[in-house]
């Protein structure tokens, strides 16, 4: 039983690590701030969720489980808020998306993203 829980826990931790990695690659590769934020949001949401779930399985029913749950709630509340503040600040200070899609759904690149 313990080994099954360990296996699930390792799988969750690995998946969480993979999500963070994908987010990192996305931040490096995507063209402008808004798409990069989209990539970074994976490291904020799915990554910690999976990693903390994996750690919770390792912790078992203990005080550590409660602390992990508190961290998860804290991240789930603050990360979207920070993302909102960042996106809003970028929009207010005049950054426009580099990739804009018109009504037919085709995409069109508008250069560097500095308006």
């Amino acid at each position, binding site marked *: 039983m313990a080994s099954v829980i360990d296996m699930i826990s390792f799988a969750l931790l690995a998946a969480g690590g993979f999500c963070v990695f994908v987010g990192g690659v996305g931040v490096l590769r995507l063209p402008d701030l808004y798409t990069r934020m989209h990539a970074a949001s994976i490291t904020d949401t799915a990554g910690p969720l999976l990693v903390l779930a994996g750690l919770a399985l390792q912790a078992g029913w203990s005080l550590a489980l409660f602390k992990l749950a508190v961290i998860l709630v804290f991240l789930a*509340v*603050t990360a979207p*808020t920070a993302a*909102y*503040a960042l996106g*809003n600040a970028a929009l207010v200070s005049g950054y426009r998306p580099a990739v804009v899609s018109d009504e037919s759904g085709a995409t069109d690149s508008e250069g560097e993203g500095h308006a």
Partner: protein
Amino acid sequence: MTLIFGVFLLILLVIVALAIVRSEDLFAAVMLSGIFSLLMAVNFFLLDAADVALTEAAVGAGVATVLFLGALALTGKEEARHTVSPGGRWLALGVSFATASLLFYASLENPHIGDGSAPVHQHVAPWYLANTLPLIDIPNVVTAVLGSFRGFDTLGEVFVVFTAGIGVMSILGVRHSLVELSGAELDARQRSLRHHLIPRIVGRGMVPLIMLFALYVQFHGEYSPGGGFQAGAIAAAAIILYSLLEGDDRGRELLPEWLLRLMVAGGALLYGGVGLACVLLGGNFLDYSVLATVPSAGQHLGLLLIELGVGITVTGVLISVFHAFARRASR
């Protein structure tokens, strides 16, 4: 495994430090220095220095970043251009290289991490470890050393914080009531996150939780990592967050200037007063054992009071410094 992780963190620290030096956008440099502090905090935690990690995370990544941003609002966010002659460059390179070589040479003599026979672990540390439980009767040796065994040093630290706060206030803290504000200036003063609904609501939910955590760190410092310095920084972060969300004026209504000044001076006075009380009761300065009939109970009372003094002074100084910057920036 810990060693690999530590080396990884140190490499990240070097990369971030290089990025700070190379960055000409000061705003980016401030953000990077916040990341530097967070990495440093993780490093401290890895070395089992949880008390220091807590301070570094709260002060370095939290409060210092806000203060730097306040300073940037006063000065501008681009680094000033200045040219260095080629000779100057070579001189700088030479000095840096020589210093780095000397430091590297000195580090060759260092004992290994966690080496029990290192001189630093053989001097007074064994005595502290052996006597904390019998003399002071609390599990956190760091608090015992900081508050009781070396209480005089900590008193000095509190007065360093106190003096730094007075310094910043006397340089930046011009009374704003003397300055007549025009309509536009008044409008600029209202600038805050007040009209941003989402950060405001989430932040308002966070402030009491951060405050609660600060109180926990303050009063649980004898049993777990924490104490006055950390709690003061965390409490100040909560109030600063409130000021950022609701506007500096609301923050100053919450904790008016006279109260902040009272906190800055009162905390340090409380610490010193506990020391004097020990003298009056027939002990040595800051010898808390005489405060109660049972020596260890006296130690508990003394530690509680001086940690409270430290926390009050640190909170007061950090908030005062923030207000001084924010008031300057809003003019």
